[in-house]
Every structure is written in structure tokens, then in C-alpha cells.
């Protein structure tokens, strides 16, 4: 144990070994230009010459790319010193590197591009975590793992060239996942997957239509996408699908447009039936008793279209007038009650005036007969015995409907004549009954003129 001495491994041999190692390594370092620190061979693929070399492998000095830690320059500065075309790209968001820098300004070239991995190793290693794929319009959020659990390679979607994307790239994997769906889906919506999908999976397996304004309820939930989104080939197409009922259901309308295009007023998405129809939106509003009847009482055999809206079509059997008042029930009746009828007699050729308007209908319309009644007075009014048939049947010649009495005698009075002391028509001042106390067939003078003495009669100017 004494072999090791006081300074442990710093024995004479140890110190010599240290010096030799240091000498050799420093010598090799100088001789190799730092290559001994290289983590591996540089890429030898030749490209467009820049910075005096056609490939990284031709670079012999480490410091050409590796700025010293204490230098103001960064490694990306060193990259861009040669790769001026990339520096140019980074100025425009429309270009690949511009879009990337826009998304994450802190990204360094080496976060995607690596070297020292061999002469033929790829210079680009865009790991999902480092490469802001979403800056190019497609997020890899939903593409973290392949179906077999393995990590994605750029070439899985891009093939040889990462700057291109073949439209059928998606199909290859997604057909393996679900062939039937993939085929049906591309038939329905086309094969340009990126037109709708941006990789955030919002239209993926956890897609719910109910996050949109048009929620799928009832029967709508059973419909296939293309029932509404026919020929949609882009997100914009999908979003512009019409949301009104008629756009899809016009062809289903058994009402042939009679009820307009707002199906939802009566129907719900739970099914066409039962429907709740607001009849008051139709031209025939349901008022009074009409609101109480079952639909089929008017709409026989469920035929809703062309149902006549005139009363008589339904109420012919109810006509107590036996058709005598015609078919315009509404002229007198309202929907609330048959009994609550109001007949405007003035519309007939016999307007009710005076005392007539006070009479009850059946006083004239006996036996329920309303049609064809004679308007002659005598039809109702018998000539009183007092007239004794002296005036014929034209009551209206002397009477008005206001009252039987007073009446005005409008004919030349036979006796006494004017020259007999009358006033030219009849005895002025005397009432009819003064001379005709019991009948107009008989006249007497003696009620006023005593005996034959016409001089002492009252009321006269004898």
C-alpha cells in the first residue's frame, strides 16, 4: 500500500502519464484542426456552393460554424453568414423559415438542423416538439404517434421532400385505421384533407357538431354528414351549409309550400310527427268553437291542403234554416255560438223600422220560415174591424211603422166637402172618431151637430 505515496495517483508515473496525455491531445488537437472534438463526420452531400464550400464536410475549421461562447456572434449567425437564402426567407412569413421564425423567434437553426451525424446522415431532424409545424397551417397535435405506436418521420407524410405534401399521404395510414370510413369520407368530401383538417383534431374522432350553432338534435343526429353538407370540399363549404329547414327539407314538404318554409313553427327535429300547428297562421283562423274541434272534423282523411274555408262546406248539415238563408252563415252567425246570431234585416227588401224593429222574429216568421215571406202588411196585420174593410190592404197609405196611431188619411175625404164647412179635405179639427165612432163605414154628424141644426154644433164655424 505504500506504492501509492502521499499524493495518491499523482505518482511519478501518474504525473508523467498526465503530461504525455496532455501533450499528445494538444498536439492532435492542433494537427487535426479541432477535428478530434468533432462529434462525428460532417455531411458530405454537395449542394449549391456557399461560403466557399459545396458541403459541410469541406469545412475544416470548427470556428466557421461554432462561435466561441464569449463571442458576440451566435451559431445561427454563423449559419446565416453562408446560408443567405435562408436569411432572406426568414424575412417573409409566407416562406417556410419566415413562418417558423414568426411562430417562435427563439428557435435556433440547430433545433431542426443537425450535423456531425455522419457523411450521409440527414441534416434535418424536425422533431415534432421543436418544429412549429402549425406555423405552416397544420398542427401535429393529433399526429404524435403512428397507429403502431411509433414516432412519425417527416417522410411518413412528406416522402423524400419535406417541402411537398402529397394529397394521398393521409389516405395511406387512415385507410389502415378504418378503410370503410376513409373511403366513404373521401368520396363524400374529396381527397384534399387539408382543405378541412388543420391537425388540431377539432374535426377528428372527438368531433361534436353540438359545439356549433346548429346542434344536431333528434332525427338530425341520425343523418349522415352529406345529407346536409353535400359536395362540401372545404372548411368554408362546411361552415356555409344553410341552416334553415327549407334548404334541406323543401323536397319533403307534403304541404307543397302552403305553410311557408318555416317548418320549425310546427315541427321539431324529434320527428315530423307529432306536429304542433298554429292554425291562426293559416288564412282560416280557429276562433270560438272552431278552436275546440279535432283536426279531422274539417280535414277529413288527413288531407290538409285545399280544405274549403266556407261555412257551408262543413255546416250544411247544421243548417236549421233548410237553406232558406243561403250558404253565407257568417252573415248572421259567429264562430262562438250558433245561437248568438245577428241578422241585419235592413239588408232585406223589408228593413225593420219603428215598431217592427221591436218585434220578435217568430212574430212574423212563423213556423221557422224565413224565406219567401210576403212583405205586404196584411200578411201579418189583419185589417181591424174598425176599418170595416173601407181602406183596402195598403196600411202604409195611412200608417207608419212608428205607431198605428196617429195615422194620416191621405185621400180626398168624401164628406163633408169643403163648401160644407170642411177645410178642403175633411172636417178640420175633428178627429176621425168624432164622425166615425164605431166604424169607418159609418159616419155620424150628430155627435157634434145636434139634430139637424148644423149651426150649433161644436167645433164648427157655424
Amino acid at each position, binding site marked *: *500500500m505504500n*506504492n*501509492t*505515496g*502521499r*499524493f*495518491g*495517483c*499523482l*505518482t511519478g*508515473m*501518474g*504525473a*508523467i*502519464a*498526465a503530461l*504525455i*496525455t*496532455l501533450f499528445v*491531445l494538444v498536439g492532435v488537437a492542433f494537427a487535426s484542426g479541432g*477535428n*478530434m*472534438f*468533432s*462529434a*462525428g*463526420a460532417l455531411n458530405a452531400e454537395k449542394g449549391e456552393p456557399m461560403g466557399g464550400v459545396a458541403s459541410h464536410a469541406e469545412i475544416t475549421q*470548427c470556428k466557421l460554424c*461554432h*462561435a*466561441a*461562447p464569449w463571442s458576440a*456572434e*451566435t*451559431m445561427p449567425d454563423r449559419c446565416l453568414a453562408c446560408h443567405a437564402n435562408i436569411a432572406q426567407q426568414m424575412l417573409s412569413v409566407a416562406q417556410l423559415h419566415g413562418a417558423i421564425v414568426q411562430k417562435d423567434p427563439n428557435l*435556433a437553426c*440547430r433545433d431542426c438542423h443537425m450535423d456531425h451525424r455522419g457523411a450521409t446522415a440527414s441534416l434535418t431532424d424536425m422533431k415534432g416538439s421543436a418544429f412549429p409545424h402549425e406555423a405552416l397551417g397544420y398542427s401535429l397535435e393529433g399526429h404524435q404517434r403512428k397507429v403502431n405506436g*411509433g*414516432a412519425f418521420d417527416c417522410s411518413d407524410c412528406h416522402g423524400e421532400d419535406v417541402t411537398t405534401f402529397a394529397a394521398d399521404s393521409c389516405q395511406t395510414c387512415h385507410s389502415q385505421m378504418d378503410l370503410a370510413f376513409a373511403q366513404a369520407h373521401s368520396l363524400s368530401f374529396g381527397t384534399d384533407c387539408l382543405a378541412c383538417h388543420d391537425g388540431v383534431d377539432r374535426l377528428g374522432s372527438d368531433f361534436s357538431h353540438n359545439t356549433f350553432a346548429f346542434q344536431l338534435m333528434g332525427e338530425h343526429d341520425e343523418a349522415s354528414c352529406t345529407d346536409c353538407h353535400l359536395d362540401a370540399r372545404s372548411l368554408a363549404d362546411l361552415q356555409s351549409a344553410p341552416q334553415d329547414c327549407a334548404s334541406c327539407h323543401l323536397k319533403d314538404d307534403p304541404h307543397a309550400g302552403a305553410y311557408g318554409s318555416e317548418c320549425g313553427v310546427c315541427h321539431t327535429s324529434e320527428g315530423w310527427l307529432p306536429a304542433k300547428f298554429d292554425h291562426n297562421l293559416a288564412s282560416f283562423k280557429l276562433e270560438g268553437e272552431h278552436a275546440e274541434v279535432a283536426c279531422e272534423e274539417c280535414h277529413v282523411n288527413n288531407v290538409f291542403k285545399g280544405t274549403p274555408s266556407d261555412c257551408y262546406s262543413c255546416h250544411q248539415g247544421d243548417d236549421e234554416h233548410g237553406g232558406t238563408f243561403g250558404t253565407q252563415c257568417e252573415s248572421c252567425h259567429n264562430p262562438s255560438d250558433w245561437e248568438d246570431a245577428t241578422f241585419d234585416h235592413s239588408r232585406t227588401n223589408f228593413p225593420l223600422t219603428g215598431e217592427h224593429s221591436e218585434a220578435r222574429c217568430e212574430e212574423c216568421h212563423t213556423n221557422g220560415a224565413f224565406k219567401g215571406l210576403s212583405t205586404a202588411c196584411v200578411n201579418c196585420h189583419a185589417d181591424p174591424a174598425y176599418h170595416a174593410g173601407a181602406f183596402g190592404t195598403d196600411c202604409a197609405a195611412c200608417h207608419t211603422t212608428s205607431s198605428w196611431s196617429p195615422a194620416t188619411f191621405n185621400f180626398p175625404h168624401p164628406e163633408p166637402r169643403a163648401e160644407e164647412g170642411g177645410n178642403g179635405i175633411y172636417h178640420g179639427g175633428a178627429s176621425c172618431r168624432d164622425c166615425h165612432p164605431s166604424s169607418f163605414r159609418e159616419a155620424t154628424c150628430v155627435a157634434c151637430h145636434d139634430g139637424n141644426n148644423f149651426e150649433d154644433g161644436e167645433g164648427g164655424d157655424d
Partner: protein
Amino acid sequence: MLRGYKELWWAFFVCSLVALGYGFVVYWYQEIPAASELIGHSLGIFGFILMLMTEILYTLRKSSRSARWGRMSSWLQFHIFTGLAGPFMVLLHTSWKFNGLAGATTLLTMIIVLSGFVGRYIYTRVPRTMDGLEIEGTLSQEALKRARQLMSLWHTVHIPIGVALFISAFLHVGAALYYATLLK
């Protein structure tokens, strides 16, 4: 026998654990952890710290005249344990590429480990107390003399290789810091 190889069993246990974790990482990411990334770099750093402990602690204990912390046999066991676990982690850190200085350092590491195995074989040929002191009289004078000469010869090889290894390792660490770790 198991007791005599306790440090080997510990080293085997720890290396197995590390290998298991490494295997899981390879399976999960479907690729070998790169030396410069979290897993690979951590393996390198921890492995190198263990290797430094292998060297420094044992040397300090051996060269200490006054202090006597623990038995020498325990320190040798610890030296062997860290001298196996450390290099194993460093080997995983290489990501199985052995070019340049890093490759040379790995090679030296493997050599020093093999050298350690050889040394342990020679060391155990001389009967010792728990403190590592030789027990006189169990071997013939001739045999003891040969064993001591062999041990001495071995030291003159093992120690310079170790020193060369650490010089090269420090240069590797420095270069890694300069070219990669401190990159802006």
C-alpha cells in the same frame, strides 16, 4: 462467496436499473438517446461524477496519514462499485458512437475498468485484514514477494491509465462546453 463480492452485486444491481431505464427510453422514443440531450447528457454527467468519486475519494483515503475514515476494504468496495457503475453510465452516454476525443476517452474508460478487474484479482491474492493490511505468514515468502511485485507493477499501469483518462475526459468536457453546451 456472495459476501466477498458485495460491491460487484451492488454494481450489477445499479447497472441493471440504469439499463432498464435506458431500455425503456429507447423503446418509448424509438431511438438511442443522444449524448447531448437530457437523458444522454445526464448519464454522462452522473457517470463522470461517479468516476471522479472512484478516483478522488479512494486516493484521499489512501493518502491520508492522520484521518482514518472507515476501513480500507470498505473504501475499496466503494471504489469498485463506483468504478463500475460510473463507466457503465458513461458508456450509455456515448450513444454508441466512438469517434474523436470522446471515443478515445471511452476506450480509456473501458481499459481502466478491465485494469481494475485485473488489479482486484492480484490484490485478493494477498491475505489482508479488514483494514487492508497484509497478514503475514499465510503465504510463503516467495509467493508473497511475487504477489507484491505484481501488485506494484499493476499500480504503475493502472494509475497512469487513470490519469490519462481523466485528462482526456476533462478535455472532452471542456470541448463539449465550448462547442455545444454553451452554444448561443
